């Protein structure tokens, strides 16, 4: 089955409907009209650029280039994660990068080599696309966990100190903070899985069906990818926090003020 292309005119038609949300934002004086226009423009430019380099990467299909591209994605994701968490770049850059690399290594190997049994796991069509999908989700969870975990530790330092003074080691004393951060980050993912297919058709599945796959194949990809995203996100946050905690606390187990600078 051949996919129906969207002509440039039709694509432009898609933009015209934006007048509805923009009018509503304007009516309520929300101050979001300009932000929306800028976001749509950015999205358009970024996606066109992505389309260009993906076309180039797919044609080239060179393992080294693909791995290099994933490393660039990791660097960008690391910078974005720390900037959005509003924490010290110097202290967290390495932990976030290590967390991403370990999670991607485990999940990519498992998905591409064990489940899909690809002959070339660095095949751009799979390696780049799957890594991008997983990394975007991982980054979102990592931002929530890092910012919630360390902000709460700073805000409720009395609870942390009280645990330390009551005999807890650092690992035990941070458990309540990690528990809350994990709940905050993963409850939406769990909720999303609970209603998946009932209320919303997930993006991967929709994309595959539009691309000509049978619903059966699309469903299987969606399930496995959802699981991989969930697992990779969990690995990355746990590894990141484990490494970050080595730098975030001083030798007396007090949280460093520089972490928030």
């Amino acid at each position, binding site marked *: 089955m051949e996919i129906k292309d969207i002509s440039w005119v039709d694509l432009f038609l898609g933009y015209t409907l934006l007048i509805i949300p923009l009018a509503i934002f304007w009516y309520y004086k929300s101050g979001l009209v300009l932000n929306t226009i800028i976001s749509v423009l950015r999205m358009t430019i970024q996606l066109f650029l992505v389309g260009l380099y993906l076309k180039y990467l797919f044609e080239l299909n060179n393992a080294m280039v693909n791995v290099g591209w994933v490393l660039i994605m990791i660097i960008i994701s690391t910078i974005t994660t720390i900037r959005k968490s509003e924490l010290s770049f110097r202290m967290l850059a390495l932990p976030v990068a290590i967390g991403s690399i370990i999670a991607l290594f485990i999940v990519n190997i498992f998905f591409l080599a064990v489940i899909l049994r690809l002959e070339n796991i660095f095949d751009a069509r799979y390696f780049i696309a799957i890594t991008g999908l997983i990394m975007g989700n991982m980054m979102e969870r990592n931002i929530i966990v890092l910012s919630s975990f360390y902000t709460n530790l700073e805000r*409720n330092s*009395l*609870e942390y*100190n*009280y*645990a*330390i*003074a*009551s*005999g*807890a*080691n650092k690992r*035990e004393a941070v458990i*309540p903070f990690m*528990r*809350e951060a994990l709940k905050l980050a993963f409850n939406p993912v769990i909720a999303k899985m609970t209603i998946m297919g009932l209320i919303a058709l997930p993006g991967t599945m929709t994309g595959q069906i539009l691309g000509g796959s049978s619903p059966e194949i699309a469903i299987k990809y969606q399930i496995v990818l959802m699981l991989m995203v969930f697992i990779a996100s969990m690995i990355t946050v746990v590894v990141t926090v484990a490494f970050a905690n080595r730098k975030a606390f001083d*030798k*007396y187990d*007090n949280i460093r003020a520089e972490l928030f600078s």
Partner: protein
Amino acid sequence: MSLLSLQNISVVFNNKPVIRNFNMDINSGDKIAIKGDSGSGKSTLLSIILGLKIPDTGQLVFNGNTVNSSNISDLRNSISWLPQNVSISVEGVFDFIMLPFSYKQNRSIRPTKEQVNVLIKKFRLDQDIYTRKMSEISIGEKQRLLMIRGLLLNRPILVLDEPTASLDSSVKTVIIDFLFKDPGLTIISASHDQDWLDKCNKVFEFNK
């Protein structure tokens, strides 16, 4: 030899000296109170004694050893800290009391429910308090639960921050009598309460 010695302790906060060249020797069994206005450095000093804050200058000597990162756990594991008020992420009262005994360090001294009950009764709390949630209890009840937790840890030094602030007078008398009757127990406290201060053998005054 003093049990704990604070030598030339100074702390600067926002370029202002909060504590300046403070010295104090604490012997085993001492009952010490620090009084003073809010912001005079009482809580900061307690944090230093607890090993939770490192002074800018000066040193802490515990059992003859200068406290540093490699032996700070010796100091921390000898002190029960009873803060004035603290939020703990547990729901039930019994879980609140037992939380420190889930830590590896304290598992071997986990008290029985009977041992907890003795203190619940002694501190004039209702026996049905276990069935309640932490969010449902009063500040005075919470303060007594903090004391029970601290005492069950069975450590030789108690550090208390305004221990009688939320207690009514009859309960206060019972608790003061209970804590001060043990001659071996070292008490270091920040307090404004004259009844409490009268029981202490050393009182330090902090001024802004």
